[in-house]
């Protein structure tokens, strides 16, 4: 099957993200709390990975570790062949649940924020942010402030900000969770369009099973705390994905399998 060939290709090329037996214990009020237990995953370059799991299973922690924003106690995390002890925006872009745009900056300035941290000149910044703005479909909104944008538009800006440094890996922590159902569907579709033109490796966290199957090449299912990987599902639906696919038997079967795994783990 196609995905097997893809996986083989990814492995020979070296995985974009290589997580090897990672465990994490953090200090709680009553001693150590095991957050993650022996988590391993290998993500091929350019793949779209979705992680689902119950609340508090440690999936966000895992994502923060891949971003270099949090430590882990055991195991190894490699992103593009090297550990990531601290955030590296040129390797990894992060998109958060709430838009986390800075309300005091315009759309342009928000997208250019990571560039301004590196002291890039205004012209150069604008030269880079303009194509990002048009990629996410917001041409003409560069001078608006976040409060003048809708929830979906804010997440588009967030995506543009994550892409502006052109990192090979994009980590997304429930980016559309705060959006209404229709906007969420549209944004998922938009994300796939953007992803298909940029060749990024994406790791995407969600609670929505439909969103998971619709977006992913591969879905990882995590157990409740301590988080373990309990299933790894290949989504062999053709691309580009269409809304009609949601009505197919394959789609329903995949969604059902994820649901059964989550239910069993409780």
């Amino acid at each position: 099957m196609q995905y097997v060939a893809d996986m083989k290709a990814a492995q020979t090329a070296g995985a974009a993200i290589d997580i090897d037996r990672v465990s994490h214990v953090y200090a709680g009020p009553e001693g150590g709390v095991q957050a993650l237990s022996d988590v391993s995953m290998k993500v091929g370059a350019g793949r779209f990975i979705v992680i689902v799991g119950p609340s508090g299973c440690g999936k966000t922690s895992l994502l923060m570790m891949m971003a270099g924003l949090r430590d882990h106690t055991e195991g190894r995390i490699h992103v593009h062949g090297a550990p990531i002890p601290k955030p590296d925006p040129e390797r990894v872009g992060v998109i958060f649940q709430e838009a986390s745009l800075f309300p005091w900056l315009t759309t342009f300035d928000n997208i250019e924020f990571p560039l301004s941290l590196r002291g890039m000149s205004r012209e150069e910044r604008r030269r880079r942010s303009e194509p990002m703005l048009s990629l996410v479909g917001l041409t003409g909104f560069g001078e608006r402030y976040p409060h003048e944008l809708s929830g979906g538009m804010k997440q588009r800006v967030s995506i543009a900000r994550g892409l502006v440094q052109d990192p090979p890996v994009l980590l997304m922590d429930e980016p559309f969770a705060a959006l209404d159902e229709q906007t969420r569907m549209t944004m998922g579709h938009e994300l796939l369009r953007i992803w298909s033109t940029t060749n990024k490796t994406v790791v995407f966290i969600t609670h929505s099973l439909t969103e998971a199957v619709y977006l992913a090449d591969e879905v990882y299912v995590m157990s409740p705390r301590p988080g373990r990987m309990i299933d790894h599902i290949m989504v062999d639906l053709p691309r580009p994905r269409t809304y009609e696919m949601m009505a197919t038997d394959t789609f329903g079967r995949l969604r059902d399998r994820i649901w059964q795994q989550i239910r069993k783990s409780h």
Partner: protein
Amino acid sequence: MRRPDPKIVRWGILIALLVAWELVPMTGLLPELFLPRLSKTLTVLWIDLDKYWAALLVTLYEVVLAMVIACGLGIVAGATIGGIAVLRDLLLPVFSSLYAVPIVILYPIFTAWFGIGSQSKVMFAGIYGFFPVMLSTAAGIRTIDPQFLLAARSMGATVTQQITKVIIPASLPTVFGGLRLGGALAIIGVIVAEMLTASAGIGYLVTLNRTILDSPRVFAGILCILVLSVAYDIIARRLERRMVVWQSAGRRQQQASPRPIAQGAPAPAAA
């Protein structure tokens, strides 16, 4: 019915008050000792203009210095206390309680330490205005959405960049609220101090003329203070609007959004 423009209503109220100020004493409703006519007040103000002007300059000088102390110390102390958890837990409750103390009882001590000249007014009013600035700066820093800092870190912001590019702009609206209040308190502090023990300033003129029952001159002083306070508020508001564009813009938008409930209709129960 269309609601009248609030701007016109505001001016209308102001003019009505001024007219009442003239008419009420003229008709004998209130004796002129209690409320001298507006025209008489303005006349004595005009006659003694250089005296009032000199007093106003003294007051203004003290107010500006007091504001510098209140804002400068307040921001530095607020940022330190708000930013460092240990200090916050230790000192913030103390300062919050101190804020409730009527510091004016300490003013005699200030005159003993700094004399009855400008220095004691500046110190007293500076400390009076210090508290709201410090407390709101601490609050502004404490209440920053941690998501902002996480996002900045993920984009590679250093600690210095987190402070200059996230913490400062994010806390600016709250800090500005405190600055406005602190500035107003600095004015109050200076005037009160001048009224208690002083040898110059508008507050001093008011007290002096009160003891000799020269009502028009008392009211002339009050008028000066009123103009000073209102001018301060207008300037502070303008400054705030310019500095915190995104926030005032948000407020404007909220006001502009149509109200779903008709005027006068009972508000729906909170869902």
